[in-house]
């Protein structure tokens, strides 16, 4: 009894945590089981978006020109590979997520974007997005980000996602200030990325990896190749080695970059990797050891089957 009285606070906290976690987990489990999200084809999305007239200037997003906004959505539906998270930003994780969204449910993407623009809030999966005022003011004003400068719908979506989802990497910078698209505010750690996909999209995600250590999956090439045959593979990479930005010899072994794997094959020179990031496909030849060194996460995303709906 004494023990109970002394630890009353701790017990109460543990009890609250238990009910909170079962509540959230329960909601996710229910969603996975019932799978209420629907997928669509690109043709359906094109038919829908081509029939949409230019919306009126949104009171919620004053810096987003409606003509450019609609144009941007059309471009992304017609050419999803051209989607561009911008030079120097930390939007690569959100870019990979939207790539999956556009490939799974382009019609859902178009409807979500239009709702978010018109109403200032919108729901997707089990999440409801209602971005902060500063996000609404900033979207459409980002500059010197390459093509992202003239893609206000993408700016809106990246900023909204970064404002909504938080991981431990965002602890010290949770609120947006101008320029934060390049900082930890916009960063995505591995668990956060997988959580976003599970919460928002109609995919089952099988993830192996961490933010600190490479996954122990045996031969990295064989593992990735095997996973690729069953679904879309997202790789979580150490970009400090892949795209060097400093000439130093000692490099931190920390992953910072998400790419969508397009192909991987063995060649005379080693391993040829083709991946999508930042608006285009890139081909790189690597040694097998190098591949193992840079891969920190392999997320296999498989579309849920109709029977699971």
């Amino acid at each position, binding site marked *: 009894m004494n023990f109970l009285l002394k630890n009353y606070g701790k017990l109460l906290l543990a009890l609250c945590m238990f009910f909170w976690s079962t509540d959230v987990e329960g909601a996710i489990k229910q969603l996975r089981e019932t799978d209420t999200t629907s997928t669509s084809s690109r043709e359906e999305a094109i038919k829908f978006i081509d029939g949409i007239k230019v919306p009126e200037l949104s009171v919620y997003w004053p810096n987003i020109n409606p003509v450019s906004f609609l144009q941007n959505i059309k471009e992304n539906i017609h050419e999803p590979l051209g989607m561009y998270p911008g*030079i120097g930003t930390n939007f690569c994780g959100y870019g990979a997520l939207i790539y999956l969204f556009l490939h799974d449910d382009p019609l859902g993407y178009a409807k979500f974007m239009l709702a978010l623009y018109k109403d200032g809030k919108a729901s997707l999966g089990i999440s409801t997005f209602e971005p902060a005022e500063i996000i609404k003011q900033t979207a459409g004003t980002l500059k010197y980000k390459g093509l992202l*400068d003239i893609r206000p719908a993408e700016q809106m979506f990246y900023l909204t996602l970064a404002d909504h989802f938080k991981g431990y990497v965002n602890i010290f910078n949770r609120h947006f200030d101008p320029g934060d698209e390049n900082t930890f505010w916009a960063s995505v750690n591995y668990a956060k990325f997988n959580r976003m996909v599970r919460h928002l999209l109609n995919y089952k995600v099988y993830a192996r990896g961490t933010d600190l250590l490479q996954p122990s999956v045996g031969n990295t090439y064989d593992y990735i190749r095997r996973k690729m045959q069953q679904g879309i593979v997202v790789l979580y990479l150490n970009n400090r080695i892949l795209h060097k930005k400093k000439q130093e010899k000692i490099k931190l072994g920390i992953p910072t970059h998400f790419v969508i794997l397009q192909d991987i094959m063995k060649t005379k020179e080693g391993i040829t990797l083709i991946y999508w990031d930042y608006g*285009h496909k890139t081909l790189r030849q690597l040694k097998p050891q190098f591949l193992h060194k840079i891969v920190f996460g392999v997320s296999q995303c498989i579309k849920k089957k109709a029977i699971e709906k």
Partner: protein
Amino acid sequence: MKSKIIYKIAILVTVLYSCSPRNISTKYYEQNRTTLDSIQQSYTKLFKQKPFIVGFTDKAFENISLEIITDSLTYIYDFKINEKRLSDSLFKYNLNSKAVTELINQMHSIRCTWVNSFDYFVEGEKKSLVFLSIKPVGLSRPFSNKKYYVITYFSQKQYYDKKGRLVNNRKQRQLQKLNGEVFKRINDKVSYTVSSTYR
């Protein structure tokens, strides 16, 4: 005894100040203007013929990273500076092999680590800028995280505040960062910063 210590501290401060990035930055462009402008002009001309990005990825300036941009794919290759594969690849992708090799040699001579070009937009109109990073010997001092002198060549005049910092436009005058860095005026179209990364 006291005066000796003060004297030593004064020497140390002078040495450290003379090695500081700020001091190097203000002079560097003017001292090396001919070579820097030449690299920018050659690169701009070659980029228009066939888009590519090139840089040195190691301290000894022996390893080259070459990114060849085509409509369907970007090819990234690593070469040693005199490797035959480099010229073979330039030939394979229809790059002007002689001119690109000259550009690489010119970059090597001035310890230029990286050159690329990217688009930006002013009121919907496409503009481009050339981004040049150099690692001058003076910036390679210990305890200094900022080791790269980065120059941007804009295709049109830019706006700067009273302190000479790049701002977004004439009306708002908000600091305009590039790659997360504040850039300072060299002239109307050229600005610089000192950065911890070369791209």
